[in-house]
């Protein structure tokens, strides 16, 4: 599989077909990526309840393609919703590694942004960006479901602006 992929890639590059293909396929890949953001169903703390509420009937996040999946292998967004203790940090890092690329990280709530009210606690990691590349920060303690959905829409804009596709990754 790798071998055939490489051969196809080489041919595409050699014949300049890659550029044309990218131009054709990029909007399509990008559109499908940003409209099917599957976050990991992983509740850390308080904000997890607002995550549940946002997928309920009133806000209905599923209409925007935000569907929670239980396995990291099926996800492309890691939603950090709560304070991160030193005991759970390795587990979170491993979950992030397990997710297939392209992947994004959203830090929801003050605790995962900067430690929040637990600024002096001995067992809390002061901010998720100390060990994960965070893309979107949603402030609030806890943020309302509207704010969570707004964060996902911001991530959509970011994916659109990044303009990445599987054929473009050099």
């Amino acid at each position, binding site marked *: 599989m790798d071998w055939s992929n490489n051969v196809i890639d080489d041919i595409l590059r050699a014949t300049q077909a890659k550029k044309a293909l990218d131009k054709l396929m990029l909007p399509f890949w990008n559109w499908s990526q940003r409209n099917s953001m599957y976050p990991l169903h992983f509740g850390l703390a308080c904000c997890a*309840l607002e995550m*549940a*509420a946002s997928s*309920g009937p009133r806000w209905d996040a599923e209409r925007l393609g935000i569907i929670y999946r239980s396995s990291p292998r099926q996800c492309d967004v890691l939603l950090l919703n*709560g304070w991160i*203790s030193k005991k759970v940090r390795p587990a979170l890092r491993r979950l992030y590694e397990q997710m297939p690329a392209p992947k994004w990280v959203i830090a929801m709530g003050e605790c995962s942004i900067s430690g929040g*009210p637990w600024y002096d*606690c001995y067992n809390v990691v002061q901010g998720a960006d100390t060990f994960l590349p965070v893309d979107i920060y949603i402030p609030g303690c806890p943020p*309302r479901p509207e704010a969570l959905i707004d964060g996902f829409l911001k991530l959509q804009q970011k994916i659109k602006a990044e303009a990445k596709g599987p054929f473009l990754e050099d």
Partner: protein
Amino acid sequence: MAEMWVNMGPQHPFNHGLWNLRVLMDGETIKYAEPILGYLHRGWEKSMENRTYPQIIPLSDRLCYGSSMSWSHLYCMTMEELFDIEVPERGEYIRVIVLELQRIVSHLLWLMAFGVDLGNLTVMLYVIREREMFLDLLQSITGARMTYNYPRIGGVRNDLPPDFERDCIRAMDYFQGKIDDYEKLCDGSKIFRMRTEGLGVVKPADAINLGLTGPNLRASSVDVDIRRDDPYSVYEEFDFDVCTHDACDTYARYRVRMDEMRVSCDIVKQALEKIPDGPVRVKVPKNAPNKTAVARVEDPRGEGMMYVVGDGTDKPYRLSVRSPVFVYVSAANHMLKGHKIADVPSVMGSIDMCLGETDR
């Protein structure tokens, strides 16, 4: 057959909260279950020694996010014991109203999680819909959806908004019909009954010895309710039933919580009828006396208790918390031993986990 350890957690669809259940399997049968805690530990009790008394109220909301009101109320109650303050009567009535609304919200949250555990997603969607109604009521009083920061040492922050009584009674009447819907959906489903009846049996004597409290104790056929037996706030004024069930199993725990939601609706209605006029809050001194105080309440999950040591300054010398769920997890082995691994979500889901107060 060879024995095998299975790790369920910290990321696992069955656990609502961050904990790890290690089970020793013999084939499909559970021989031993060992909970591993500490994934949400942040040293709550220690860091409270760095904060002044009023600063702790919003942080005690974050102890248990499923029922934040009852924890900040418990904290304020402990402090009133320490400062030796009487709360005005209207303040106490408002507290009872918000506490019982919070109890309904918490039980609805539990039913939502339990529905997901048993694969009954319809219950989850129904329950979230009605939960929003109560969150709106609480939001109209406090301004927040989840972490309210509403009780104060010596009363509550603000009075009830105009027209609250009308909205609340309307919501209660609508909701009581909805409980019937849930019961039809759950009790009428043969799969639901098969997955709950006869599982996780805890006999009454065992339940007391293991330290179970609250709905889980009453489901084990023990008639204890701190609201009635050691009345705090103004619970003496109300006439309400204590719901118990004789089956001692997962289904009994479900039944008790459903009945309790009806009782809570009743208490709210009684409180709205009896509520007197007057102030809602009194002034309190800044520095605590040099003594200790203890208070306990009937949290939606069980017996919540706080113990505080004052040392004459404006910060507590020591504040320790009794969380009901912390004791429930220690009973996991007793409840799970001998069951199949597929029953773990049903049994563990029925005890209403909330890890924020467990790990503190």
